[in-house]
């Protein structure tokens, strides 16, 4: 099927892209933004690993190192991983999956992107005017005392928060009001459920981050004394405020990833998803509990033992819905017809890495062991297994899955498989070693370290290079495919969700006709998907 007027072709010109209200184009604009952020954050990470090759000063000294790890964290979290799946992939596919012509508020959608760009520019300004060395957590009183562009970076995060809130609001209303006729709540693709749960967290948690960062800025500018012990304030209060947002925020990052995985596993197993409602509701379970566990970041902060006990208990509750999802995915694969195309490889990589990430969370939720492991490389490794092994793997899985829908062309399958392998191996080499170092007592955020960790650090650094090669290959073949890739039809993978019923790339208004739901998103027991 060829379409005379795909959204890529019409209207023409750079300006038409910059003022576009089309969710598909805005999705691509986001994709460009987050790719820049990912490259930048990745470059920072490589520089960190380069420095850590040996305890000596290999590359940069303490000042530069402290800035690099701060920037790596801040850029990856605020500019890449939070907007990654919802704003970039979500923007493109959410209305398509719903059979809608656009999101509910297209102008707000474009505004969100511009706010994101403003935030990104502010972050870059901060990097080039004195930089920031507080860590992405901005802990007081360090952050109110240190020199550098802390105010600018904090304001950047504040601005980016608004972008995230507006995206969440937009999606929530879209899901409520713009579903195609016949698409009842339990006929929604699970990716939509995940985005919905994510939107709730974005809406409820991000404003609290906003006010926290605002208070931090005022603390630096006016010394209002809320967080500064010298003025009667309390630095631990900042930690409470900060984690009240930032813990739910990690679910803003992981829930959409879980949604992508549900789509991938069902599609590539060509099998009805097992436990649809359990997967959908577990997203809400996770979202709800996520608001009650922030204190598990503070077991060593001197908070009361009672508080620690409660937070530890609630933290364990998160494990159950997460486990339910994993078991449901496995049950979906059972008796399926499993095809190992690239998106599925990313999904399997996700299962492997996220299992490790989730299970190592047990050590950190348990009070006795967290005391030893807190603020060590064990936490760094756990976090990366969940965020990279989870979210980034799912992001790339989703990107490879929807790529032919976006561009109407397919990437090179051979190189795609090679790079999954490189990233997977490189990742494990980089971060599994960090579990060992952390448990042995290597604290995080050290630019130099005791001699006994030299071999493990060296190993870890080599792993990061392998990953970098993998990502470089991905960049090359994806860009190449936009222009030279093999043309594909509407439904190259044989999926049953609605975005595959329109041409690739879709026409300007998404569908040639008004959509009506004819079958459920995973009815592989009733419908054989048309390949084109």
């Amino acid at each position: 099927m060829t379409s005379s007027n795909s959204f890529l072709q019409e209207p023409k010109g750079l300006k038409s892209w910059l003022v576009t209200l089309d969710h598909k184009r805005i999705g691509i604009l986001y994709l460009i933004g987050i790719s820049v952020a990912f490259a930048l954050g990745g470059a920072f990470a490589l520089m960190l690993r380069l420095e850590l090759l040996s305890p000596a000063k290999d590359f940069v000294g303490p000042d530069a190192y402290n800035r690099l790890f701060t920037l790596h964290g801040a850029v990856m979290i605020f500019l890449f991983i939070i907007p990654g799946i919802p704003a970039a992939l979500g923007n493109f596919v959410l209305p398509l999956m719903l059979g809608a012509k656009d999101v509910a508020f297209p102008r707000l959608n474009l505004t969100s992107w511009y706010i994101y760009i403003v935030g990104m520019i502010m972050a870059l300004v901060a990097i080039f005017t004195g930089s920031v060395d507080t860590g992405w957590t901005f802990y007081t009183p360090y952050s109110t005392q240190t020199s550098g562009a802390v105010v600018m970076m904090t304001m950047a995060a504040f601005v980016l928060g608004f972008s995230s809130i507006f995206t969440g609001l937009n999606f929530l209303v879209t899901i409520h009001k713009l579903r195609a006729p016949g698409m009842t709540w339990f006929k929604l693709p699970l990716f939509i459920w995940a985005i919905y749960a994510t939107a709730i967290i974005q809406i409820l948690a991000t404003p609290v981050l906003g006010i926290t960062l605002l208070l931090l800025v005022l603390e630096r500018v006016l010394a209002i004394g809320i967080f500064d012990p010298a003025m009667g304030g309390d630095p631990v209060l900042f930690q409470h405020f900060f984690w009240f947002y930032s813990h739910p925020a990690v679910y803003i990052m992981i829930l959409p990833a879980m949604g992508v995985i549900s789509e991938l596993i069902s599609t590539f197993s060509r099998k009805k998803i097992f436990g649809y409602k359990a997967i959908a509701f577990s997203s809400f379970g996770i979202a709800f509990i996520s608001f009650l566990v922030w204190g598990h970041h503070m077991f060593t902060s001197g908070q009361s033992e009672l508080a620690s006990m409660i937070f530890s208990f609630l933290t364990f509750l998160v494990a159950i819905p997460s486990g339910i999802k994993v078991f449901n995915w496995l049950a979906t694969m059972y008796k399926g017809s499993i095809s190992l195309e690239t998106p599925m490889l990313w999904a399997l990589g996700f299962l492997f890495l996220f299992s490790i990430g989730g299970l190592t969370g047990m050590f950190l939720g348990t009070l006795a062991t967290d005391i030893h492991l807190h603020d060590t490389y064990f936490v760094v490794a756990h976090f990366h297994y969940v965020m990279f092994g989870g979210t980034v793997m799912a992001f790339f899985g989703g990107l490879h899955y929807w790529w032919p829908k976006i561009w109407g062309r397919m990437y090179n399958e051979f190189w795609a498989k090679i790079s999954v392998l490189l990233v997977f191996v490189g990742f494990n080499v980089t971060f599994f070693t960090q579990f060992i170092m952390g448990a042995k007592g290597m604290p995080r955020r050290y630019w130099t370290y005791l001699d006994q960790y030299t071999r493990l650090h060296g190993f870890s650094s080599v792993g990061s290079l392998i990953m970098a090669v993998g990502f470089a290959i991905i960049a090359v073949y994806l860009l190449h495919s936009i222009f030279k890739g093999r043309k594909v039809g509407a439904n190259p993978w044989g999926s049953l969700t609605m975005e595959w019923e329109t041409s690739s790339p879709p026409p300007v208004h998404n569908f040639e006709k008004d959509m009506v739901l004819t079958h459920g998103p995973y009815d592989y027991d009733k419908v054989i998907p048309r390949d084109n």
Partner: protein
Amino acid sequence: MDSTGTLFLPPGSSTIAGDVDAVFNLILYVGIFFFVLVVGLAAFFVFRYRRTETPGLTSGKDHNLKLEILWTVIPSIIVVIFFVVGFRTFLKMNIIPKDAMEIKVTAQRWMWAFDYPEGANSINELVVPVNKPIKALLSSTDVIHSFFVPEFRIKMDVLPNRYTMTWFEATRVGEYDLLCAEYCGKGHSEMVAKVKVVDRGEYEAWLEKATAFDESIPLKEHGEKFFKTKACNTCHTNDGAGSVGPTFKGLFGHEVIFSDGSKLKVNENYIRESILDPRAKVVMGYQPVMPTYQGRIKDREIDALVAYIKSLSE
């Protein structure tokens, strides 16, 4: 007590280390079981149900109540067990024995200072008797730090506006690393002290020495020792290399320019003032980050440091 450590854990050298390690290992083995289960099943399914021909309709079975109850209830029971054993050990880690010896620990950028009940004090070296519960009363003079001794399995944040505390009872004589685990800026990675666990007699002897000053050794040799034990070397070098603060090499008698533009030829009184009130005069190009040594250093010790710094200009 395990004295070699495992693949993950370092050797345990405190009374609670064994309990913590038992919890760690329990979670580790249960975790490995579930990991193998999940990845094993995934690998098996991928192999067994791989797509070999164009697929037709597949099974629509999408629920199995018994199975679903099973995979909800079993993990729930397991996490409750984790929680309970973790909490019980945590309580044990938090109940400070009544007969504990209290040592005041002060963290500041970027060193650890210790005040002993007998009146002695030390910097970056915590000397404690073996098999004796030690309560560490922690406070910071600037930002948040964290008191972390991996081999004792303890960690506690050190806050600027209040006291926090932790305790340990070392079970083996030896030297252990005490690390700062909460990011505190430029010298964070070098904010590493030693915990020296010694037997009772050796501790008494150390106390004696720590409170006395041996006049038979030349002053500048004392100074050379204090350069390290008072943690001057965290931020100053003695070989002319750059660091957080000015190098001591050739400093004495050399003219320095301060951040307010005034100048001074470095003399004994300036060195003394810089130790006791370091932010009074800050050399241009450096940050006013040095903590005061007021109350942490004796006059004879200052004499020794002055002698040592002088010797570096000869």
